[in-house]
């Protein structure tokens, strides 16, 4: 069955809220591009010592992923308590897995 209703019934307050939200998303996107550029630039220029580069890359990645989750995937909005819990739980299991495979494996 076709949806024949129009969006004139969406009140203007709601439309205004959606627009503001979209602006925040655009800012997030720009910041994510900037973070990506910084990460690539650091490696391409090779100016910083390796021991500082690796943690820095990880921090940049985590910040970018934070933007993805909280803004693009709406984790900052209400009713996202359970999703946030499950993702943090997954991150915890992921860190354990990485620690096991990365640290306690050798030849």
């Amino acid at each position, binding site marked *: *069955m*076709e*949806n*024949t*209703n*129009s*969006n004139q*019934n*969406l009140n203007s307050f*709601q*439309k205004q809220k*959606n627009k503001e*939200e*979209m602006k925040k*998303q*655009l800012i997030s*996107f720009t910041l*994510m*591009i900037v973070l*990506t550029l910084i*990460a*690539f630039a650091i*490696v*391409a220029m090779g100016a910083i010592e*390796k021991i500082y*580069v*690796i943690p820095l*890359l*990880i921090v*940049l*990645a985590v910040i*970018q*992923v934070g933007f*993805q*989750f909280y803004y*693009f*995937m709406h984790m900052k909005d209400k*009713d996202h308590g*359970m*999703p946030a819990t*499950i*993702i943090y*739980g*997954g*991150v915890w*299991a*992921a*860190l354990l*897995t*990485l620690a*096991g*495979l*990365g640290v306690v*494996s050798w030849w």
Partner: protein
Amino acid sequence: MNHDHTLNPETMPQEPEKATLEGKNKFLGLWFFLGGETVLFASLFGTFVALRNSTAGGPTSQEMFGLGLVFIMTVLLLTSSLTSVYAIYHMKNNNFKLMQLWLGITGLLGLGFLSLEIYEFAHYITDYGFTFRSSAFGSAFYTLVGFHGGHVIFGVSWLITLLIRNAKRGLNLYNAPKFYIFSLYWHFIDVVWVFVFTVVYLMGKVG
């Protein structure tokens, strides 16, 4: 009682994807699935990290990887994430046509990413003899990056199916959750890619 109006109300709610119980369930179900996917990719990343130096005398990451191509791929995928946000914005404004348009652009950007990745793999295989079987590093690289690419392929197929199936149906409370959870999945693929380019390519270049 006639139940037809429940999925096609006169006024679309402000969050159509969560306006039905089915929508709420799909929303949670996909987030739980993403929790599992986090651990799935962590296992692949762990395996890669353990095997990244097992090159068996073959080419290493520092020799092979070209940052330019990877940067373009990243921009394509990140932009496709933004375009899917636009699509959902239009969905919340009950604008079916614009939602379709932005979803289509998302799919095209995804296909662009995939083509570049296929080109990249072909380049490694022909120019360096770096294959899935040539070393443990090769197995780990192609499996990790390949699983991610496989998820992108699945996502694009899902998107095409959604667009075709709903083309004549328009937007209603039955298919709004379907579009929403697709976009969540698509964002997650970008989350994984952020770690892929960081751990595989950038750290691979650093050595």
